[in-house]
């Protein structure tokens, strides 16, 4: 405490005098790895004499945090920094609720160090309203090396390979696909298949532009056909299962693969498993050229009037963008740094491969925003689509019927 006040004093002498700069951070990162990741940012912020008020709202995807935020906004007392995903950032910016750190971003040249994919969700209307901590890749397969060794097969390179593996795993007493049957997980699986079977162009037209003809087209039917194949690879106890339990099935070798975003890596790391020797992290097969489905985590800065709080936001933003913090943060979180210019040599092979793939796809324009994580479309549309996807995955509906239902649901929610 004493160190803190001394540090604050020094900082106060160095710049314009601030009584007590502070930052209130609202987030839903309450699991072990997530909390440790945020700890890296907090340490940096606190070391600069800024008071950190933690405002965690538990609940995986941040639904509860969203409700808490709405209440705070309604009462006219927005927190300084809030973890918000995708289009919600654009919505809040549109509502004029967000401040910015343009001066800091210009001074630190954020424009040059962040990939376009990240900028799409942090720089809105020319203003830096949000500060990115990390990028997740959602189109990933987590494969058990033991299971693949048991049937003597290589990791799948195409969807046909993957589909052909299923009976072999079944014969060996292994569940081909570990799956958590919750609606949101099925939505992430769907987008991975959409990028894999349909390719980046199709993905963009269908799920970002929401083009009705593409949504009703034969490629969408092909996507649902692959989903139907995957539907046949899961065990009957899948409905309702949490994603980390599905990861545990792969870790134990009871199941061969899981299709899940790269936050699953934390489960493998915590179980003491090493990429390459125990498990493999491979992007889902791509039938139409490379693609990369990304999810950006960032803290959005709500407009403040108190100079102490504005100062706190600046220190907070600067801390997040610090290369050392980005590395420390992402080692704990299991994602890759949002900055493209940091040295990744201390990170594991999965992170390095993902970062290289993001750089390549960002350049080629084949990095597409996550649909399930509400980057590609608004929450209302994602919700409506998720209903169709989860209904399809939990029934024996035909791919054709699901395609029509999806297009209808999206049209109705627009």
């Amino acid at each position: 405490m004493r160190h803190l006040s001394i540090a604050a004093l020094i900082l106060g002498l160095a710049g314009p005098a601030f009584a007590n700069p502070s930052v209130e951070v609202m987030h839903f990162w309450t699991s072990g790895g997530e909390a440790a990741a945020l700890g890296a940012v907090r340490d940096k912020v606190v070391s600069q004499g800024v008071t950190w008020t933690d405002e965690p709202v538990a609940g995986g995807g941040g639904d509860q945090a969203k409700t808490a935020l709405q209440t705070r906004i309604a009462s006219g007392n927005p927190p300084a920094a809030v973890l918000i995903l995708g289009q919600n950032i654009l919505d809040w910016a549109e509502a004029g609720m967000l401040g910015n750190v343009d001066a800091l971003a210009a001074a630190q040249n954020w424009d040059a160090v962040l990939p376009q994919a990240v900028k799409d969700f942090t720089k809105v209307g020319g203003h830096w309203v949000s500060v990115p901590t990390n990028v997740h890749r959602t189109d990933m397969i987590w494969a058990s090396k033991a299971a693949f060794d048991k049937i003597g097969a290589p990791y799948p390179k195409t969807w046909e390979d993957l589909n052909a593996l299923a009976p072999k795993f079944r014969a060996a007493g292994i569940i081909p696909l570990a799956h958590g049957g919750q609606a949101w997980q099925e939505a992430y699986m769907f987008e991975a298949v959409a990028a894999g079977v349909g390719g980046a162009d199709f993905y963009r037209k269908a799920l970002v532009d929401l083009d009705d003809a593409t949504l009703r087209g034969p490629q969408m039917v092909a996507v649902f056909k692959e989903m139907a194949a995957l539907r046949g690879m899961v065990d009957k106890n899948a409905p309702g299962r949490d994603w980390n339990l599905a990861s545990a099935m792969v870790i134990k070798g009871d199941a061969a693969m899981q299709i899940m975003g790269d936050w699953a890596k934390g489960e493998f790391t915590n179980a003491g498993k090493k990429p390459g020797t125990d498990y493999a992290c491979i992007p889902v097969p791509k039938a139409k050229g490379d693609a990369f489905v990304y999810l950006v985590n960032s803290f959005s800065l709500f407009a403040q009037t108190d100079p102490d709080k504005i100062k706190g936001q600046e220190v907070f933003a600067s801390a997040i963008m610090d290369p050392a913090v980005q590395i420390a943060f992402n080692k704990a979180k299991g994602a890759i740094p949002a900055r493209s210019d940091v040295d990744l040599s201390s990170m594991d092979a999965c992170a390095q491969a993902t970062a290289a793939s993001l750089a390549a796809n960002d350049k080629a324009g084949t990095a597409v925003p996550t649909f399930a994580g509400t980057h590609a479309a608004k929450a209302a549309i994602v919700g409506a689509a998720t209903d169709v996807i989860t209904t399809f995955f939990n029934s024996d509906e035909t791919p054709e019927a699901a395609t029509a239902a999806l297009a209808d649901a999206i049209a109705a929610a627009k």
Partner: protein
Amino acid sequence: MSGSAQADIRTRLQEWLPKLVLAPSFAVTLFFVYGFILFTILLSFTGSKMLPLWTFVGWKNYRSLWALDNWHTAIANIGVFASLYIGFSMAIGLMLAIFLDQKIRGEGMLRPIYLYPMALSFIVTGTAWKWFLDPGIGLEHILQQWGWTSFQFGWIKDGRYAIYCIVLAAVWQTSGFVMSMFLAGLRGIDNEILKAAQIDGASTWQLYRRIVIPLLRPAFMSAFVILAHLAVKSYDLVIALTGGGPGRDTELPATFMYSYTFTRNQMGIGASSAVIMLMTVAAIMVPYIYAELKEKK
């Protein structure tokens, strides 16, 4: 002179005091219950998305609502859930109460055992039943380990039957509570009437059928009112037990309302679903309560 004036103030104060004491809670109820009902009704006619917006769109939200498959699933599910839940809870509660009322030994110990589930929150009940009903770790798994290898009980993983799992857990939770309400009712029945009936040669069945159950009418009404509102607002049990799944097969109006209002940025549609829920409950409860109260007079 002064004495009578004092007495006058005192009687007036006595007259006013209850009203004064009740006024704050009345005002709070007026604002937080009826005020917010009004607020929700207004919201349901607006184009509110993430935050309340006061752009009125007429009946659009209601039209969108009734065009949603999800809402139809929710309505069908609440029909199944509410009727089975209320029916079974009352039947089991009444049965337990009658059995406990047979002057048996250890009643003081048995009564709390049946009542305890009510002390749990629905989240705890939901999680416990989720594990118990899970074929991989629960009942099916255990019975198969004990040697009954053909035993199958996978309702919770099957969209056609999952709603019955919710009924099961909910009935387990509340039937003990219903029992205690009926038990109180049974204890209130005058023994003289029963003795008179017995002397007249009534069988036990006739005794209950013709005298006891009709006399329990107020208890039935309280139980119905409590169970009906529990059924309509059941949210936490579904979230803990199935999360609305498999697919959306156990969606109920309450889970629907929450997800549209707070997670899907469709507050207008969420509000309209809340209004429909309120109207449905009112349509069932108001005539019932009215009839019951009127007959008493």
